């Protein structure tokens, strides 16, 4: 006997508690099982690339804050690196160190948020999320000391950073580094060993190395599928070649690995920050030769950095004017969505939500 059943099409989003912003998935369901899935983009499209064509090079820094708004520092870093490559600007050593420190702090903050929301998607009623946010708040406090803002930082400038760090920053950073490993341990003992988390996430949404490379995924998504590729090592920018750290990789490429990679990367980031603090020396933090209104030479530059979500690239084309002729943003969370269907088709609704959470997208970056 066969039951006469129909497929159901449901819109997950744009308003849905676990769509991480205004994202929409058109999902075709057979009962609880997902048959087909189509992401619909564009609810937060602000035309950043077009806006960038009409702003000066320094003004675009404020636009990059609003791309991946949980990791503004990394966006700033990627953008100013591209400008520096385009105009051959040299960065003072101290500025490089500070950039690396803040970028790694930002990576921790972003990974904390990803972990917290993944657990929220798993249905943990906010407790791990609140614990993650408690730690993220400390990083935002540090950023407030540095540049007076917490989210939209605009900290970096082509040729360095806008202003040297105050002494309080180093004191607080020390305290932070003291407390953070314990906090990560606490988070791990709440989540990593939890059998419900394990049974929900292990062997769910498996991606093979061939698949992820073929689909241009990057960041934790790539490394979870046991592809050892990190731009900080593969193509060292700033001062990453002076620093010793590991690149953690996952074994199976399932959702649990993607979570675990983030936790391990947080520990590595702490290691990097500690080394930077030991290596940093006093000196200028901003190249004084760089004017406020930069006239870039004709040409083009692509710079990709290892952002928290993956390879964040800026492709700038200049026609010699005060603003870029074309500014293309390679947004990691946008491209990481390529394999969403492959990850989820055949799973249950719960798996869809968890897989989607493990990609760690930010809509500001997806839709730009």
């Amino acid at each position, binding site marked *: 006997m066969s039951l006469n059943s129909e497929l159901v099409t449901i819109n997950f989003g744009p308003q849905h508690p676990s769509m991480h912003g205004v994202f929409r998935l058109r999902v075709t369901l057979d009962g609880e099982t997902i048959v087909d899935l189509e992401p619909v983009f564009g609810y937060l499209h602000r035309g950043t690339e077009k806006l960038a064509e009409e702003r000066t090079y320094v003004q675009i820094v404020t636009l990059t804050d609003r791309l991946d708004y949980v990791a503004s520092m990394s966006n700033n870093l990627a953008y100013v690196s591209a400008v520096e490559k385009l105009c051959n600007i040299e960065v003072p050593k101290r500025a490089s160190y500070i950039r690396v420190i803040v970028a790694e702090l930002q990576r921790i903050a972003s990974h904390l948020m990803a972990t917290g929301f993944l657990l929220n998607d798993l249905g943990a009623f906010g407790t791990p999320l609140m614990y993650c946010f408690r730690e993220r708040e400390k990083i935002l406090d540090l950023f407030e000391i540095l540049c007076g803002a917490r989210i939209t930082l605009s900290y970096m400038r082509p040729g360095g950073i806008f202003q040297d760090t105050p002494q309080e920053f180093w004191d607080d950073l020390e305290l932070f580094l003291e407390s953070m490993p314990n906090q990560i341990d606490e988070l791990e003992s709440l989540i990593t060993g939890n059998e419900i988390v394990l049974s929900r996430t292990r062997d769910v949404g498996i991606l093979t190395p061939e*698949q992820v490379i073929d689909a*241009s995924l990057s960041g934790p998504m790539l490394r979870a599928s046991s592809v050892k590729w990190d731009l900080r090592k593969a193509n060292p920018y700033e001062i990453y070649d002076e620093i010793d750290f590991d690149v953690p990789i996952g074994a199976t490429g399932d959702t649990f690995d993607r979570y675990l990679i983030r936790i391990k990367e947080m520990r590595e980031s702490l290691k990097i920050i500690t080394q930077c603090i030991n290596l940093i020396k006093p000196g200028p933090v901003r190249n004084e030769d760089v004017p406020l209104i930069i006239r870039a030479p004709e040409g083009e530059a692509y710079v*990709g950095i290892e952002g928290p979500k993956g390879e964040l690239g800026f*492709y700038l084309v200049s026609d010699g004017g005060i603003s870029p002729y*074309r500014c*293309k943003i390679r947004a990691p969370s*946008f491209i990481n969505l390529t394999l969403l269907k492959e990850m989820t088709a055949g799973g249950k609704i719960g798996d869809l939500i968890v897989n989607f959470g493990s990609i760690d997208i930010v809509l500001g970056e997806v839709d730009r």
Partner: protein
Amino acid sequence: MTKSLNLNTVVQNLPDTLKQEVNTENGSLYVNSKYIFEICRELKNNNKFQFNYLKSISAVDYVEFFEVVYHLDSLITNTSLVLKSKLYGRDGNSINSVISVWKGADLQEREIWDLMGIFFEGHPNMKRILLWEGFKGHPLRKDFLK
């Protein structure tokens, strides 16, 4: 450190049928837009290149022509290459899709069609992505709203 591949060696290592379809000028590799798919397939599968990772596809509007720029990476040999292809004319531009070479081209090609108006032939789902169906024009073009 990622090395960028010497363009002349790239040209030499291509098979003879494709050699005349590429030329190097101003330090970048220009590809005849009709042969982009064949060349990309060659670059991925040829053991001398092994470009298995498509970093990004972008398009630039130079008013008299469009330029589609492919940033390729080889994770195996840690080398990079920039491919460019010129498309002349304003309307009805099209170029072959490379989605069957790298699946990562999927969303990026759709984005370029949406914002720049370059059609990718062979893409299974070529429709607007960031803007809605029925939007007039392609906003990243230089002549948009002018």
